[in-house]
């Protein structure tokens, strides 16, 4: 099978409110999968459930054969799934380097090792020149990049990116796309959750999953999904608003 992440019939209800209903998909190692859906479709909730922030109401999540349901977020990170947040969460009073070192410590125990990993990741994402800047002094684009760098330092096998290009200008978006496209060659799979920057998703995804009101309404290649009438209807034509 070779499927790394298996999500089966995943549902999450908040009281009576259905946030996720019978979501069913898999991720293979090194894949880039796009997760799209209008505002409120459940993308962030799905990420939260997979990473253990919320417990699913029903359904199963398996990662490399291990059951994830009931595990805490830090356990799931150790197993190899990392996420970035829609509203970025830098550690404001720590420097860029220190931020990334925190991520690196997920795998190593000494400052020297963590620093080495952090420096490598900062080189990969291009943030090394700003390593001594305090995180709170960064621009939004750099904060998003810091978030990504820090996540990479945890040596994930799968990274869940929540709105990783929202709020970026075209140049910054291009740079981020380039970074994400280099992930598979490092053996890292990615799920990119995006609401409306369609061009990004169409470019980088090998496969796309579409959520609407918590349900999966389509899954397939970018072309298939782009022409799916239900998907177009869900977005009411806003799908290609930002190209």
């Amino acid at each position, binding site marked *: 099978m070779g499927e790394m992440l298996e999500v089966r019939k995943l549902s999450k209800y908040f009281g009576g409110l259905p946030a996720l209903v019978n979501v069913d998909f898999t991720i293979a190692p090194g894949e880039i999968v796009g997760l799209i859906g209008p505002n409120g479709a459940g993308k962030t909730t799905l990420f939260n459930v997979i*990473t253990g*922030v919320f417990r699913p109401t029903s359904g199963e999540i398996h990662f490399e054969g291990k059951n994830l349901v009931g595990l*805490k*977020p*830090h*356990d799931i*990170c*150790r197993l190899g799934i*990392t*996420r970035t*947040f829609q509203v970025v*969460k*830098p*550690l*404001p*009073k*720590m*420097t860029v*380097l*220190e931020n990334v*070192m*925190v*991520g690196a*410590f*997920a795998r190593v*125990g*000494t*400052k020297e090792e*963590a*620093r080495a990993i952090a*420096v490598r990741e900062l*080189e990969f994402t291009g943030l*090394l*020149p700003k*390593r*001594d800047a305090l995180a709170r002094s960064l621009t939004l684009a750099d904060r998003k990049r810091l978030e990504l760098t*820090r*996540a990479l330092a*945890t040596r994930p096998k799968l990274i869940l990116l929540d709105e990783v290009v929202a709020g970026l200008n075209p140049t910054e978006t291009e740079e981020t796309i380039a970074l994400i496209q280099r992930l598979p060659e490092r053996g890292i799979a990615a799920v990119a959750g995006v609401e409306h920057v369609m061009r990004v998703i169409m470019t980088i995804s090998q496969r796309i999953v579409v959520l609407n009101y918590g349900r999966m309404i389509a899954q397939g290649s970018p072309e298939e999904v782009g022409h799916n009438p239900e998907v177009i209807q869900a977005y009411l034509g806003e799908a290609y608003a930002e190209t």
Partner: protein
Amino acid sequence: MLGQGRRGWRWVGAILGAVVLLGFPIVVPDVYLQHLAILFLLWVTLGTSWNLLGGYAGQISFGHAAFFGMGAYTSSLLFAKLGFPPWPGMLLGGVAGVLLAVPMGYICFRLRGPFFALSMLALSEFLRLVALNWRDLTEGAVGILLPPFFISKLPYYYIGVALAAATMLATWVLVDSKVGFYLLAIREDQDAAEALGIDTTWYKLVALMASAFFTAMAGSYYANYMAYIDPPIVFSIVDLSIAMILVAVLGGMGTLLGPVVGALVIVTLSEAFRAYFAAAHLIVYGVLIIVAIVFMPEGIVGSLAARGPRWLRPRVATEAPATGTGH
């Protein structure tokens, strides 16, 4: 080049400070001043130990008197009832503090921010009531009277120096390690920390246990020095729990020198006001708190660090690589 020059000054300053510290009671024979110096050392210990949890891990506890009292009663009772020697008893007092920290943390870390702070306070108060009412064990309101262990203040002084130094050293080592990074991360953003693989509950507990250990030892030290303890003294909200916070906040939370500066200010002002206001001298605490929070929330050291010389900066020590790429 410049860094090495600054580092040289640091060493000079440290050695000078050590000489002053160690020579003080020999050079100054005044018993009252020696007593103040001991109080100063006690507050350095208390402020630093609270700072470990509050300043570095970001968990503000209003209930640290619980550990102080625990340490004080443990060593005092061990001596009074079993004849256990008082100074090894101080270590056991510290251990007792750590053991207390586990259930307290388990209960209180379910809450965040101010609710954590207040639940610690409630548990500390509960402990005070237990000490007050469990007369068979603790002698209740009568308290425990200990014999003077030393006639001169000098041995107390040097033990106090050792305790304060140990607390500061432990803080320094802890903060500069993986644990330290994790505590700072928890302080900055607990949810992000969880997502980065940090078992926040465990690390908060580690910080609490370390903090409790030194606070409890300080309690034992106090008991051995003052030779008398009772529940209102060693479980005092204002004189201990709040005062510890004041020392750290006034001096600068999350800095190593902050509690030292804070302790200095508190001891001198407190003694000065005691002469004029007697029982109401605590009014100076209230005023200091108000002044510190409204005008100097970063504390003295913190405010200086923002504007002053680099060596005062309260940052986790990360040295840039000697040959940097991409400068």
